[in-house]
């Protein structure tokens, strides 16, 4: 009987194809992977059922400096449409911290209250940052003493070709304006650190007189305070000279400004309840701005996060590098 092609041989070919596919997919990294689920319409809020489409990962964080030895964890989800990407973060925090040095009237003079704010930040690569994929923030933000890309508490990248996109959600300074501060990271110089604000306007305005002894602004007539009783810069007017305050009155010190241009690309929504934060950040996949990472849904992105619990930049909880990929 001549050697004929049969089902048996067909099976052999199929096995080859399976082996082929297997060879291409079996290789994987051990890093934590955040899979962004594709959805037709983006979530409209923190409790939108669309979030059920995405699988949450628990991102572990290690405390640094005053938080050394402590751990934190953030449940993280992501979804995307053909236009935008959305992140949802949930973490435990027994204290709502939005003071950020707010003024308090003591009866005869104003004083800053003690207290900082809660924050979460994300760092993506715009252009590849050398070894960021393996070492994350340890090579750009929390570098060892003497590192070439850090000086006097400031940090940046080692070369101008390396650029990072830093998303910075601040409970007191950006969230009341409905945004996360959109900044970017470039090479540190002798004069300046590598952290830059994106093009456009935003940030916050310090509410103080020339001699820094008292607040300069108060809510404009007809304007109410924003989220967490924070005064927005757009709603503020100068305090009249005949204004009388009662003991215990408070006024915002860092007034969030309206974020416009590239700096206002990241929309934010948040809720503090039950001893924890829920924060949603969203941004266009590709803003077209050079100071933003452009998300291509065919590729993977490395990013790392930092959590600040009523603390300044030096005291944070940091995550390892996470891989973002689009399902």
């Amino acid at each position, binding site marked *: *009987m*001549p*050697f*004929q*092609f049969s089902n048996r*041989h067909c099976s*052999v070919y199929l096995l*080859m194809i399976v*082996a*082929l*596919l*297997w*060879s*291409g*997919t*079996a*290789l*994987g*990294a051990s*890093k934590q992977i955040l899979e962004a689920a594709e959805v037709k319409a983006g979530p409209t809020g923190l409790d939108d059922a669309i979030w059920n489409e995405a699988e949450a990962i628990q991102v572990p964080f290690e405390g640094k400096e005053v938080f050394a030895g402590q751990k934190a964890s953030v449940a993280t989800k992501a979804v995307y449409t053909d236009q935008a990407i959305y992140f949802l973060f949930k973490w435990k925090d027994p204290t709502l911290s939005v003071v950020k040095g707010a003024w308090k009237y003591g009866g005869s003079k104003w004083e800053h209250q003690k207290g900082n704010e809660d924050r979460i930040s994300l760092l993506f690569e715009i252009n*590849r940052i*050398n*070894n960021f*994929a*393996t*070492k994350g923030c340890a090579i750009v933000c929390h570098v060892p003493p003497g590192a070439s890309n850090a000086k006097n508490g400031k940090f940046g990248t080692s070369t101008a070709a390396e650029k990072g996109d830093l998303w910075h959600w601040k409970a007191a300074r950006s969230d009341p304006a409905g945004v996360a501060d959109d900044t970017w990271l470039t090479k540190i110089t002798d004069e300046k650190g590598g952290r830059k604000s994106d093009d456009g306007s935003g940030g916050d305005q310090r509410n103080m007189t020339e001699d820094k002894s008292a607040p300069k602004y108060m809510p404009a007539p007809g304007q109410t305070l924003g989220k967490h009783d924070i005064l927005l810069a757009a709603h503020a007017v100068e305090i009249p000279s005949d204004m009388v305050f009662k003991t215990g009155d408070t006024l915002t010190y860092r007034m969030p400004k309206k974020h416009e241009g590239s700096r206002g690309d990241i929309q934010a929504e948040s809720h503090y309840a039950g001893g924890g934060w829920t924060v949603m950040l969203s941004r266009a996949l590709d803003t077209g701005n050079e100071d933003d990472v452009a998300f*291509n849904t*065919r*590729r993977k992105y*490395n990013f790392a996060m930092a959590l600040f619990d009523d603390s300044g930049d030096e005291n944070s909880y940091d995550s390892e590098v996470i891989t973002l990929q689009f399902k």
Partner: protein
Amino acid sequence: MMKPASRTSVSHDNGRGLHMGTMEAPALSSPMAWLKRTATDRDVCAWNRFVGGTLLALVVLLFLSGAFLAFYYSPVPGTAYDSVDFTLFEAPFGNIIKGIHHYAWNLLLVLTIFHLVRTLVAGAYRTPRRLTWISGGTILVLLPLFIITGDLLPWDQRGYWSTQVRLSIIASIPLIGEITVRVLQGGALTGIVALTRFYVLHILFLPCILLGCIVAHFYFVARHGLAERVMTTSSSAKRIPFWPRVVNRWLLTLLVTALLLVMLSHFWPPPLGDPADPTDSTYIPKPEWWVLFLNQMVAIFKGKWAVLGTTVIPGVLTGLLFMLPFLDRSPDYRPAQRRMILVVAGGIAAGIIVLSLMGYSEHFS
């Protein structure tokens, strides 16, 4: 019972090789006329015997896709990864072309092994096809060298650390190991010199050697013809013109293979890991499927026995591959008459499969 055809003739005229009345060289002025005069065994176009043609199609696709990738590639550690990343995600059809290059070598290796096994079972390594077998074996041995040199080029974690593992294994080979590594690396570390050398080997030296082997292989196939059918002693007497029948069949194979690879690349894009970080010694590369059994041997034989896994056993297997035509003293090419050879070959194949499964279990479970 029909007497098997004589297997000792070296003539092209044994009814299975290319046949032109005489095996004259093609006139340079009229290659088409030469092609039109050439006839060959009808079995050449049986698609279950067209593995060699498929392999040639894959090699052509690898050369073409490799040339495309070379347009964008920058063989410097600082930019190699970015250039591959650009090719994959920015260049027009870059992901498809990169995918073709990635999947084609997998398929090439699988089909070459299949081709070898079939040739082994058919007894086609025996006289007069010894040189056909040896040239084919040389091609098989060359393929891993392509993979080894190609893996480093994207300068990603997997490629970099896989190369480190392979270099450490090569270095353990007695006498020649360390000098070989030094020549490949061009220094103490895997850096820009190593990347340049791997690149030149991958796109220049190895392709030239492969091309020579392929030409030799097809020359021997043309001269000595196809092997007899495995399950029959009959031989097809019908002959078909090389042009256009065989050429058209090959072009069709090229097209179908290309389409298959395009689909694979589209639905399962080729992987690109994180950029290489030579300071990150915590990264443990996972061996690829074709090297699982070798990896497992290295894991089994340790200390003073390591040389068994890194050198002796692979060396003996390679030696057996090339010596097989001279070792086989069986009276006939039919499988039933070569039980001892097939049992030994089956035992070796079983050992490779078991070791590969053990490796898979260790690294992927």
